């Protein structure tokens, strides 16, 4: 599939706009997944995913064909989404790392094991609940967790998408997974 996509991209670069259709339909669910997991809202996710493809199209010249297209595309999508989140959300999170500590956040300051009221859990549909908890993660953990579970992406590729060292990617996946473990253990 990768080679078919590479062919299509060459055609688009030559001026055949229609060849982009295959690219979109092949990646639409993955890009949409990234956006949806990040923002947790269908309409917004669709807007962002469309915007990501349009940007990919208009900036296709700057895409280096020797590299993986998916990585490049996901990078556009995550950057767009992170920008959007930054613009609308306050910059304070309970999950944010406390300055001067590595991997220590406000959760560690709180009593950790407070159970969610059972009825509340029951009222929430499971998928919706998981989504809510992922969206509640600080963006820096959210992006690695989302990309990690997009499948087929190695830690190395995630580090390329997010432009950060592999070590940082690992640490953030571990932190994000721990936060989610605490939230999802009662489900």
């Amino acid at each position, binding site marked *: 599939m990768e080679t078919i996509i590479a062919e299509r991209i060459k055609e*688009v*670069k*030559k*001026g055949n*706009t*229609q060849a*982009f*259709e295959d690219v*979109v*339909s092949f990646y*639409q*669910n993955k*890009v*949409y*997944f990234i956006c*949806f*997991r990040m923002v947790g809202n269908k309409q917004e996710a*669709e807007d962002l*995913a*469309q915007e990501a*493809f*349009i940007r990919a*199209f*208009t900036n*296709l*010249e700057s895409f280096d064909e020797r590299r993986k297209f998916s990585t490049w595309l996901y990078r556009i999508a995550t950057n767009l989404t992170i920008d959007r989140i930054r613009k609308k959300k306050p910059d304070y999170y309970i999950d944010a790392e406390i300055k001067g500590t590595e991997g220590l956040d406000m959760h560690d300051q709180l009593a950790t094991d407070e159970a969610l009221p059972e009825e509340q859990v029951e009222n929430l549909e*499971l*998928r919706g609940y*998981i989504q809510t908890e*992922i969206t509640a993660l600080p963006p820096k953990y959210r992006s690695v*967790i989302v990309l990690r*579970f997009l*499948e087929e992406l190695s*830690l190395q590729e995630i580090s390329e998408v997010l432009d950060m060292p592999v070590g940082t990617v*690992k640490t953030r*996946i*571990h932190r994000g*997974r*721990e936060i*989610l*473990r605490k939230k*999802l*253990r009662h*489900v």
Partner: protein
Amino acid sequence: MMNCEQDIIYLMHKYLDEALTDEEQRILSNHLQKCEGCQKRFHELKRTDTLIADKSGVTAPASFTDSVMSQLPEEKKRAPWLGWFRHHPLVSAAAVFMLLMISGIFSAWNQDQQVTVSKQEGVVIEDGTVVVPEDVTVEGDLVVRNGDLKIEGHIDGDVTLINGRFLDGDTTGTVPEGENLQAYVSGELNYVNQVFEWVWYHMKNFAGEVFSIQEKESPE
């Protein structure tokens, strides 16, 4: 739970990252066999991964591709040569340099074609024609480049026309006789007349060409 918790938890995550070595795998499973707390935690972590890996229901709407395609900007034709420039920076730089140089020469040439007059006071320039209005007296010599000259007022001095023609007040394109000029140029009439003749002579020979006259006329 025990002291080694942090290390073991790290191994759990490493397991989930599919990055455990055989040795680490052995340490982890040995520990899990004797530590119930870690077993529980490991189970929770694995379950967390399973839960968040579930992608069912998260798919783009059916109209997604069409919608993107309809929003794409129209032309994409410039792309090939833009790409070429990107891959040949040195040639591109040379091309830009040449372009600037040629446009520089061209604009210098154009500037040379513009009408210039040695004295501006009271003189009117319109449509490539320099007009000395009726009530104006130009003191001293007048040099006109690349433009026609029409005298309605007076000139006290020499007139030199470069790449231009002298226009009569009413009839354009003809050079008046000395007598006609008397009405326009006071004082130094003969003198001026000579210059007109001289210019007309050159006009006939080099009509339409660019040339310059450095020479100053001296009185007969």
